[in-house]
């Protein structure tokens, strides 16, 4: 039983969805002892070729990334015996998904909602930032959710936390991410959520640098010192990670990460195919399905008041139970209000 994963041009090492999907494949390998391989695409026109070649060799082919949509729908019908998994790929315009394709989409807005709420609750300046890569749908869904999270906080507490938005128009230029983060910090934001691929590394770096300055620490200071300093000074700067758990990249400076469990998607897909339970069609993974969520905040839990943690937990519950629907488009976002009341 062989699984081949084909990446988009981002390739492995994006510390984002390609890496995430591969982690899921590896999890499946360890569990079921299957043969796995990854093929990376250099340019957009490689997709058809790589998927076709993979389809000839493998039982399951995973196409990672929304960029591969067209290629996937062109290739899959040609290889009916092979099962295809499309991650972050929406159904074709007509809506009919070929039988041998299982698509996974994510409710990015839900995970972004958590971090938006968290950021609004944690900001000392009344301003938070959002940095997008290119304004593609998943990035925009992150933004809708994030802004909705801030709005929810404002509604509940009658506050007026603002969101500053910027786009690097790149998923790779970390230097630009850093510059933009510094600019937003300068405009008064103290927490920034980066949904901009590798540009986010620059955002994290900027938060760390600014915090170090406030805390008066050096770069190697251990976590306990950071937490103490944060309380002592009563302020600090944070980045918020995206897709995978990026909290470890700068412990104490990444407040949380808005998870998109791409790994779960690829794992579910391979598992189902291996167990002959492959259904085909579209599955949208939200908080309910463990497809999105908030990182465990391994390093920053100690910095967040427990009441806020409890509120986020409750919001999670509200979303999972359908009490709360997070907007996934501009229109819904503009009309979004919340009347949630915490039971505690």
């Amino acid at each position: 039983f062989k699984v081949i994963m084909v990446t988009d041009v981002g390739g492995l090492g994006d510390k984002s969805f390609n890496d995430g999907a591969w982690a899921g494949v590896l999890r499946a390998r360890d569990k079921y002892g299957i043969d796995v391989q990854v093929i990376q695409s250099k340019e957009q026109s490689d997709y058809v070729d790589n998927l076709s070649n993979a389809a000839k060799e493998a039982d399951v082919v995973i196409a990672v990334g929304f960029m591969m949509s067209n290629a996937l729908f062109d290739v899959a019908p040609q290889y009916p015996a092979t099962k295809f998994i499309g991650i972050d790929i929406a159904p074709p315009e007509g809506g009919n998904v070929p039988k041998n394709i299982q698509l996974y989409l994510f409710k990015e807005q839900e995970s972004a909602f958590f971090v938006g709420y968290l950021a609004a609750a944690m900001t000392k300046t009344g301003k938070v930032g959002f940095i997008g890569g290119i304004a593609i749908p998943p990035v925009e869904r992150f933004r809708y959710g994030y802004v909705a999270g801030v709005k929810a906080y404002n509604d509940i507490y009658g506050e007026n936390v603002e969101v500053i938005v910027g786009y690097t128009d790149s998923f790779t230029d970390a230097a630009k991410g850093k510059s933009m983060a510094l600019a937003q910090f300068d405009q008064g934001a103290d927490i920034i959520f980066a949904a901009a691929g590798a540009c986010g590394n620059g955002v994290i770096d900027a938060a760390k640098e600014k915090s170090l300055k406030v805390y008066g620490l050096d770069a190697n200071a251990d976590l306990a010192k950071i937490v103490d300093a944060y309380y002592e000074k009563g302020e600090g700067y944070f980045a918020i990670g995206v897709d995978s758990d990026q909290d470890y990249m700068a412990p104490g400076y990444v407040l949380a990460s808005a998870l998109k469990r791409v790994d779960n998607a690829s794992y579910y897909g391979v598992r189902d195919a291996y167990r002959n339970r492959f259904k085909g069609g579209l599955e949208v993974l939200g908080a309910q399905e463990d497809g999105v969520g908030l990182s465990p905040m391994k390093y920053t839990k100690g910095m967040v008041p427990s009441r806020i943690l409890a509120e986020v937990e409750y919001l999670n519950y509200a979303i999972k139970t359908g009490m709360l629907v997070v907007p996934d488009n501009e229109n819904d976002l503009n009309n979004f209000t919340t009347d949630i009341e915490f039971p505690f």
Partner: protein
Amino acid sequence: MKNKISKNAMSILVPVVSVIIALFIAAIVILLIGKNPISAYWVMLKGAFGDKAAWAANISKMMSLVLTGLAVGFGFKAGIFNIGAEGQMMMGAITATFVGINLGNVSPVFAIPITMLAGILGGAFWASIAGYLKAATGAHEVITTIMLNWIAVYLTNYFVVGPLAVGQGVPKSPEIAQSAQLPPLMTVQANTLPSGIIISIVMAFLVYILLEKTTTGYEVKAVGYNLYAAEAGAISLKKNIVLTMAISGALAGLAGALEVMAIHHRIFADFSGGKGFDGISIALIGQNNPIGIIFAAFLISSLRTGSNAMQFARVPDDIVTIIQGIIIFFVAADRIVRTWILKFSSPKGGESK
């Protein structure tokens, strides 16, 4: 002068030997990471030429590489370094798409040439900006074309997430009208053999004729070699600079249009995949000769297609970028290669000149 190798033979031998040397060096690298170069190359060969699908994939890539190579090579002939084929290709694709989606119900007989022309004009216009600025103000084309590349990238992004955006998922434009799509020559499963390749090759011959048989070619070359003499010889430099850029851009724009019409049927962010930049390598390997460029484009497309397959032998495809670099390095250092060839082909060994 005992072993005289003719000039023509040499101009073919140099790139061929360069390829061999590059493959040899890469083989050592592959060995170093503990893989078997022979099987890696075998998979690569099969990947590039092994079956119809491989050929289709290969030729699909080659289609626009020929054109971007011609675009850059044509500029070089006139002494202009057009680094901007990438941006011109994107602009060509944008304009072709614009026209392609707004065509309505017309016959392909009109739709295809009109869409193609739109791409040509888009690329030509974009390049002419640099040409015009050079002619009018002396602005260096290397600066302006680099900047125009970036602007084209951001404009493409803007169009596919803004005014042209359609549907959910990939930010993309709508599909161009069916009548504006170039039918494939052959379909092998999901791969198609685009009929655009015929247009590319015809263009190479047209460029050859333009350069060698027309007054425009004569003037372009004269300006490229010696602009002072050209000017004294009744050739308008300004007109020529703009014209050269326009033709160069038109070729790149056509590449963009063909990508849209023959392969993707729409535009999306980052769709050019650096083919405009590859044009530089291809022009250089093909020594700015239109016919040489056809072969150079085929070489690069084969390496690329083969490299995708090589990953199945678990050799990272980045090795192919290195191979491409080494080939071009030796094309640059052609004198070293010549010396080696002479040494190798002379019975006594050595004694050249």
